[in-house]
């Protein structure tokens, strides 16, 4: 089996640039939600989100690119074999908003994958490019596809980028769907009442071992295995029994040839909605039983960033494995009794090699990635 190494990553979240500030904020249970300033929120169920503060000053229509540009400041090197996969749910949706508001056709050059176009030029990508849309599992789907490409020898290096911004388009939609909390995000809490949106961007570079050594890179972790499965149940609501997520996890564990009880930690999707969290809790019990490891979610701190959430969570999970610490769940006050013994309001020490991250999205798609500590 080819080792799929994480050779580099970076991210921007509501806490700022990089994974250091994100990790420290998670450990100290800082909540990154801020009052939304970029559009009027008086008719929506909430007025906060995990916004990147400096994007508020960026003109409407340019925030998405500005978010990507923050990550491009690093001197990223690609070569002729570097495949680019991008993941987003709504790309630069502000252009679409402007189109509807102004009806000026010539003012809008809307593309569902402007991120891919932008990065191809910015990073001088010469190899193939794909933009993956699998709702909230977009980034994790792109990562597992990238891993397959490397494992099957299509290429030796893939860059996965993911991004979404907080826009009125998306904010109004989640408000209308009544899945947004009027208060705050409390993943796995008995009093949870919905999600809080967030925005984020990140990239992760995956390569095989030969390329890692050739480029003299240090491995930040290994994407050990993966699984993906559809619910075939409902386009916006999870299957109560979580059969799709169960299949995804089983496939990932089987591919890794590891037992469920060898996992050290689970990064759950943990949106803080009533139905998602109860589904996940049921699935974790079904799959792990008494061997369920500590479970956490970072969405109580940074919000639900949609397309990129899976990528940000891989970054956090790999950090968690390296540090051997499980971050606490920001917003958690009174855990659901069914998962009380496995979630924590304080950082926990672990001693283990493998982490599982899961994501579920509209359309009924579920992914599971197993990470291995190097």
């Amino acid at each position, binding site marked *: 089996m080819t080792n799929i190494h994480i050779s580099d990553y970076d991210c921007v979240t509501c806490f700022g640039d990089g994974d250091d500030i994100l990790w420290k904020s998670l450990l100290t249970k800082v909540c990154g939600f801020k009052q939304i300033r970029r559009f009027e929120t008086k008719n929506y169920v909430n007025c906060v989100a995990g916004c990147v503060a400096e994007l508020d000053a960026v003109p409407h229509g340019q925030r998405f690119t500005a978010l990507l540009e923050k990550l491009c400041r690093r001197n990223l090197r690609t070569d002729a074999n570097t495949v680019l996969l991008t993941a987003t749910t709504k790309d630069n949706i502000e252009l679409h908003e402007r189109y509807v508001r102004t009806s000026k056709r010539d003012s809008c050059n809307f593309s569902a994958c*402007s991120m891919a176009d932008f990065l191809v030029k910015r990073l001088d990508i010469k190899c193939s490019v794909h933009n993956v849309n699998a709702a909230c599992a977009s980034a994790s789907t792109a990562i597992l596809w990238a891993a397959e490409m490397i494992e099957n020898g299509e290429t030796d290096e893939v860059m996965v980028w993911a991004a979404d911004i907080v826009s009125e388009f998306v904010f109004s939609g989640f408000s209308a769907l009544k899945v947004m909390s009027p208060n705050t995000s409390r993943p796995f809490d008995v009093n949870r009442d919905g999600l809080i949106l967030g925005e984020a961007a990140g990239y992760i570079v995956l390569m095989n071992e030969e390329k890692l050594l050739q480029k003299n890179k240090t491995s930040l972790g290994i994407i050990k295995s993966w699984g993906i499965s559809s619910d075939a149940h409902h386009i916006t609501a999870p299957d109560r029994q979580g059969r799709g997520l169960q299949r995804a996890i089983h496939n990932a564990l089987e591919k890794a040839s590891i037992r469920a009880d060898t996992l050290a930690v689970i990064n759950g999707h943990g949106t803080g909605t009533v139905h998602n969290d109860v589904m996940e809790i049921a699935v974790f019990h079904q799959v792990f039983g008494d061997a369920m490891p500590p479970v956490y979610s970072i969405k109580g701190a940074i919000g639900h960033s949609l397309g990129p959430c899976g990528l940000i969570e891989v970054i956090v999970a790999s950090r968690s494995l390296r540090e051997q610490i499980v971050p606490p769940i920001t917003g958690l006050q009174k855990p659901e009794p069914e998962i009380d013994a496995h979630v924590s309001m304080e950082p926990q020490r672990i001693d283990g090699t493998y982490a599982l991250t899961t994501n579920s999205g509209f359309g009924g798609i579920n992914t599971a990635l197993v990470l291995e500590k190097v």
Partner: protein
Amino acid sequence: MSTVNIAVMGGGWITASGIGCMSNSESFSMPEGTLPELRPELLTTKPDQRWGRLDNYSKAGLITASLALKDAGIDTIEAHKTTAIIVSTVTGSADVDRKYFHTVVPQMGLLASPNLFAYTLPNCMLGEISIRYGFTGPAMVLSQAAPDMTNGIIGGVKFLHYGLCERVIAGYCNIEASMDSVDTECKPGAVFLVMQKTNKKSLLTFNGCELLCNGSKISDLVNLMGELIHNRFAELL
């Protein structure tokens, strides 16, 4: 790297020139123009109760999937092999995006439509197909700006090659968007193929990097469909 033989079990389409499937068509074309009206009667099995909720992109995808599955002889709702759905698009859900945001603007969000919002993710069309047919395999939409309309088919073949699914519905779905699309070479229409690996000699082969048709790299979707129709039945299992 070993070559994988790909059996095309069936195919269906909706283009501006009409509705068709591989087993009863003499030709395939994909002109500019307006797609036929997307009526529930076009589904090969009973109309969906949710039909009225679907946006046109999802309707086109669902009808085309039903045509392709019937063409492949597997359009009943039953336990399927692990079936993936991989579709490429240019404008995706842009049409319903526009309709949705028109419900947001007038009353500053007060009248935002949750029903329309639910379809503003292009992969929800795949969810509708998976619900109707019980497909539990991987599902993703590949958004693209390039005029190459074969990305979904190539992606689907790769997922077969990886072993992530036993069967795949793969293709292209792009309805006329009500706004300027990024490339006029991307034609309106939906074209889906039902494919799986085979040990027999096949027209389509995957060499680990490229999808080949009759030994040559496929140039575009229209040519691929022409080749498949010309050689139909030659590789049915």
